[in-house]
């Protein structure tokens, strides 16, 4: 039962994952004010030149968009766009419907 549930999630995430990257890119663009090229390995601080305030505003915009709260210890672990996608996926699947 538990396994079925997880399999279903993996399928959903594969579909969501692609559109999620596009959504995240457009949120980056809103916060930074210019277009960005991102991939899973893009480093949010190094490659996109965000300071800690920029990251905080960006995280809050992501939280609003997906209706989630990312706990501080999870934020600290996020370095790349791929890390962010995984965190959002985890939090969305963990949220009671």
């Amino acid at each position: 039962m538990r396994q079925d549930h997880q399999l279903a999630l993996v399928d959903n995430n594969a579909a969501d994952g692609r559109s999620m990257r596009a959504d995240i890119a457009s949120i980056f663009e809103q916060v930074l004010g210019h277009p960005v090229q991102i991939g899973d390995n893009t480093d949010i601080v190094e490659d996109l030149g965000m300071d800690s305030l920029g990251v905080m505003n960006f995280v809050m915009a992501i939280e609003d968009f997906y209706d989630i709260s990312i706990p501080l210890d999870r934020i600290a672990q996020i370095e790349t766009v791929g890390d962010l996608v995984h965190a959002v996926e985890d939090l969305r699947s963990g949220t009671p419907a």
Partner: protein
Amino acid sequence: MTILAKHAGLKQAYDALCESGVDPAHMRFDAILSPTEGVLDGRRTILMGTNNYLGLTFDADCIEKAVEATRSQGTGTTGSRMANGTYEGHWLLEEALAKFYARRHAMVFSTGYQANLGMLSGLVGRGDHLMLDADSHASIYDGSRLGGAEVIRFRHNNPDDLYKRLRRLDGAPGDRLIVVEGIYSMLGDTAPLKEIAAVKRETGAYLLVDEAHSLGVLGETGRGLAEAAGVEADVDFIVGTFSKSLGSVGGFCVSDSPDFDIMRIVCRPYMFTASLPPGVVASTLEALVKLQAVPELRADLMRNARRLYDGLQAMGFQTGPEANPIVAVSMPDQETAVVFWKMLIEAGLYLNLAVPPATPNNVMLLRTSVSAAHTTAQIDTALEIFADVGRRLGFLTSDRRRAGGAV
């Protein structure tokens, strides 16, 4: 390469600040003359950045009590209350605080920082949820990491954002604790406590208010923002400090929680540190008496705060949103902030240079804190110095200067 090489980035930023001729970490006073005056580099200087809200640091009775207690009980307790026992003053102070706040329990810590560390780590732990205002003081952030609770940050002073985040937790197990400050230490703005209390009631969360900068400042009897907002019954825990209005050092928490005493063996920042020395406890007790017996101090404080705030605004400086004893002037960039600060100090006005990440929204601030002990003449001198430096740096347009006619 040393073990400290990892701080190279921070060192570079700090060195750049020092090269411009200022070094806030090594600002050395030759003498402190009164709550509002010191000697810096041989110059008599107005102190306007010391959080000495009621000006009680030189109160003759407070000093006398401290001297008496030091003579009779010694300079220190040399250990924690668990190990070395509780002195009479410790429980007298806890009794006085509980009575002042009309609460069942009070617990005294050795600093305000430790009070937040101890309370936040003791009240919530793994499986619980800690809801912090994004602009919280470092002691709140540090305390949030000590207990292992899940930490969620909400937008500064935004009860709707807090509500939304608590709603997202619906169905999740664990306690929820909301933490806000009475007056925020950088911009001097107050929390919208009525609205936050409503969110707390609706979501079944607990509420802790840090009244560090609002004790002795806000409220009919000086109990702080919870009293001023009329929501004391909704506040489960009030944390505060002795190092601002009460003129000494130490921290506390008061509560009506019936099992509160367990915190004495739960809070590591309470158990594993030396308790406050008798002299500090005695002067704090006396200052708490003064705070209640002399309400004029609060009136003087707010009058001074209003005069400084209005004066700076009239000159066209950009200040915080409210005329509280913390009056912060925002600067366009770090270079200007540093030069401005240096010139204020050279002109005999001491206040705080506050730069990111200590400030919200990356702003550069010249942060003043007003005291009841400032004279009207000192406030006016401070305003004149601000006006003069502002003019010399091309800060104030002539129109604005006319608008600030009093100066």
